[in-house]
């Protein structure tokens, strides 16, 4: 059977839900049917994944610092703009290589997913 509404124990009658990952099928078959012609894109995927990971980690660090009160308004503003710019640049790079968020979420096996 392909659908199991009986698994839902509590349903908040929400109108909107985070959508099931849209590119799931593509991402997984790319992992499993690893095709040799995808090498360049594979490398791009890897590099962008690392960059995105570092961006997220640095952003978290910045948020810790803001919460800890150790940054002044000007520093916060500068950081914010930088992260926004980084985020925009990531979007451009992803588009250029035809990669989605799902593609960047590498499975690290025992470590779980990257992000």
């Amino acid at each position, binding site marked *: 059977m392909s*659908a*199991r*509404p009986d*698994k*839902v124990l509590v*349903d908040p009658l*929400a109108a909107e*839900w*985070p959508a*099931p*990952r849209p590119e*799931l099928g593509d991402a*997984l078959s790319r*992992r*499993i049917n*690893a095709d040799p012609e995808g090498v360049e894109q*594979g490398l791009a995927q*890897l590099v962008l994944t*690392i960059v995105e*990971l*570092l961006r997220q*980690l*640095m952003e*978290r*660090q*910045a948020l810790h*610092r803001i919460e800890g009160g150790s940054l002044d308004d000007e520093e916060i503003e500068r*950081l914010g703009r930088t992260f926004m710019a980084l985020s925009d640049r990531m979007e451009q790079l992803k588009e250029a290589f035809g990669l989605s968020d799902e593609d960047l979420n*590498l*499975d*690290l*096996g*025992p*470590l*779980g*997913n*990257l992000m």
Partner: protein
Amino acid sequence: MTASEVARQQDVALIDLVDRLLDSGVVLAGDITLAVADIDLVYVGLRALISSVAAAEREGVALPLR
């Protein structure tokens, strides 16, 4: 239950199913979900990177922001 309520509940259950089946569960060594050798190598490299950054975060070491 209306058809749209059933559909929404199917989505609700599917999200949690996906989270479990793709992100959790026992991982056996030798599992072939990633069949390309160079991706395995990358695992090792990334693992070291992730561990060291994660450990630094845990210890409250401020990562360089510039």
